């Protein structure tokens, strides 16, 4: 991980182009505000949910250097809690989402306590094992509906008075949640806390020798990442009105790794782009029937062998390359 750090770090280039970034950011938000009038809103909401999920995951992999292979546990666990509280207990959407996030954070805390004692492949295996345990719990527990999942979760009015049964209204709720989550991650990465995380990623013994309690930092990052993954999972429940085993299965953990890698890990926008690419493929290739998997495979091979830093990572590298050439 430390060997590739110099090439994937966008932080070095950030101060010089921060005004450009602000303009681009405002532009992107403006596009997102009008997008549902041109593009199918449910599709956009799905992309945003997965983008938030991938960003939360990237906080662990890209900025703390820990590959968690169990993030589906937080995504799907929070989805089940949100679906159950809204459908059975009659919560309003914001309370349902909040309880989902809270559950994911607590689950993240417990998992984190156990997992961060190990690094590298052992960390990945511990998280995978815990996620599998959680998967079988969901398969057996009566309130999850087993194989069938929880369907027809009602879209009650937000805060009791904002009607979100229309897709277009719901879109703006999802957009607000997505931007909130994204800004939290952005702030985290650019805070002193984020700098310490990066220091731990680059060289943990040195960070410890400088007086930082690495394990506490890692645990906090893990809980934050889990809670944000939970936020994405709960929001997805409001979009699709269902929670199913797909969300907690290990394939979902794998999918988020792929989204992050295709987009570019350790870049703030990479996971968003990666999620958009993967979800678009799943959605628009569905009409091709059995060819979907073949095409997905080919695109992955191409992405891995041609853009090793991910799509956004490559673009940053190119911009930087021309930047230094001009300067020199």
């Amino acid at each position, binding site marked *: 991980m430390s060997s590739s750090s110099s090439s994937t770090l966008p932080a070095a280039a950030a101060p010089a182009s921060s005004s450009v970034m602000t303009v681009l950011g405002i532009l992107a938000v403006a596009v997102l505000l009008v997008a549902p009038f041109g593009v199918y809103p*449910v599709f956009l909401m799905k992309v945003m949910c997965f983008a938030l999920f991938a960003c939360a995951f990237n906080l662990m992999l890209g900025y703390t250097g820990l590959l968690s292979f169990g993030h589906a546990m937080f995504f799907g666990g929070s989805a089940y809690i949100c679906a159950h509280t809204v459908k059975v207990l009659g919560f309003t959407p914001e309370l349902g989402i909040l309880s989902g996030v809270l559950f994911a954070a607590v689950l993240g805390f417990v998992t984190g306590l156990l997992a961060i004692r190990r690094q590298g492949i052992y960390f990945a295996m511990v998280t995978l094992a815990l996620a599998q345990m959680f998967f079988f719990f969901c398969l057996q527990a009566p309130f999850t509906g087993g194989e069938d999942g929880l369907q027809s979760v009602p879209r009650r009015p937000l805060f009791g008075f904002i009607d979100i049964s229309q897709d277009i209204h719901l879109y703006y709720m999802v957009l607000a949640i997505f931007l909130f989550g994204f800004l939290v991650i952005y702030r985290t990465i650019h805070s002193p806390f984020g700098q310490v995380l990066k220091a731990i990623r680059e060289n943990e013994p040195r960070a410890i020798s400088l007086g930082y309690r690495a394990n506490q930092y890692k645990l906090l990052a893990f809980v934050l990442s889990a809670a944000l993954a939970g936020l994405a999972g709960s929001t997805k429940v409001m979009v699709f009105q269902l929670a199913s085993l797909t969300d907690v299965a290990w394939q979902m953990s794998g999918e988020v790794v792929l989204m992050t890698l295709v987009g570019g890990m350790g870049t703030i926008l990479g996971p968003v782009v990666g999620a958009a690419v993967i979800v678009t493929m799943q959605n628009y290739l569905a009409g091709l029937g059995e060819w979907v998997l073949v095409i997905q495979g080919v695109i992955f091979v191409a992405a891995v062998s041609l853009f090793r830093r991910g799509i956004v990572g490559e673009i940053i590298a190119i911009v930087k390359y021309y930047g230094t050439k001009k300067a020199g």
Partner: protein
Amino acid sequence: MRLAAIFLAASSLVGIGAAQAADPVPVKIGVLNDQSGLYADLGGQGSVWAAKKAVEDFGAAAKGLKVDVIFADHQNKADVGTSIARQWYDIDGVDMIVDTPNSGVALAVSGVTKEKNKVFINSGAATSDLTGKACTPNTVHWTYDTWALANGTGKAIVKNGGDTWFFLTADYAFGHALERDTSKVVTENGGKVVGSVKVPLNNADFSSFLLQAQSSKAKIVGLANAGGDTINSIKQASEYGIVDGGQKLAGLLIFLTDVHSLGLKTAQGLNLTGAWYWDQTDANRKFADEFAKANGGKRPTMVQAGVYSGVLHYLKAVEALKSAKDGAAVVAEMKKLPTDDPLFGKGEVRIDGRHIHPMFLYEVKKPSESKGPWDYYTLKATIPANEAFRPLSESDCPLVKKG
């Protein structure tokens, strides 16, 4: 004022024009199923062909309907399935979705269909909740369900002398439900359940469970599992000589394509319940021959036959109404019209959306009895239509008024 008058005149003109030309009624049918995973064989492209065939046999064009058939792969994911369904209903103008195996996806699509007031005709999914507590005025469940399978297999086998049972049950909600329903039927008909064992899902080694089944001396070993678990347990039962030792296997969820991939040597002697078998009547054989010609020699499963039959009945209802736009009205019309088609014969669609027809108990042939590929089943018993499905008196569907 004048502007409004002009608009009024213009719109009435358009209205008259449309009525005079008698434009064909547009109908768009979406086949939503598994095209690449474990259910691709029993539905997949074969279901798409069956839907198109039904449109052709119905003579849609001559009857003033313009029917389009499209399809997509739900990848066995409920969220992919619902996003396709929503997109079809919202943007692509699909009026009806058909097939959709995988109970989780089916229940989700049924919810979306009700919200958008379209029509959902399910042939591939097993869950009896579709016409039970999750029933909607927009959903019709055509071919089979877990209740019918448990009931058919349990009752018919006990009547044929298989009165002691041992269950191999997949350890999750679906397996438990199958075991519970089947045990109930077995004991009600005078049989006895001598034991059962819960097997973890996606298990590879059934040896200890099969030895328990063998030592239980039960006449019937009931397989309350699905998919890969069923295939594995049947294969290993054959290796342990369960069937040669005089015990019989009863599969609770097995399709023709499963038997095909297992081979007769392994699957022989297996008892199973089905809604339809290609080599049963002349009409079935004719359909199967045409299916085989278009699908590389394969024979249709009951799910594919159900798609054909369901689409045919749907088109009849649309023809009667001259419009496919109001989903609930179309389904109400489907319930009003008696069903009658070459494959499933005469029947009805009940108030809860359940299509009623006879079910059949089959036994898988020995290799020596089979005349060739796809000649797999012998008919052991017919379960008459009025006994084959869950009676309305036991239904927990809100559409059924309890008197």
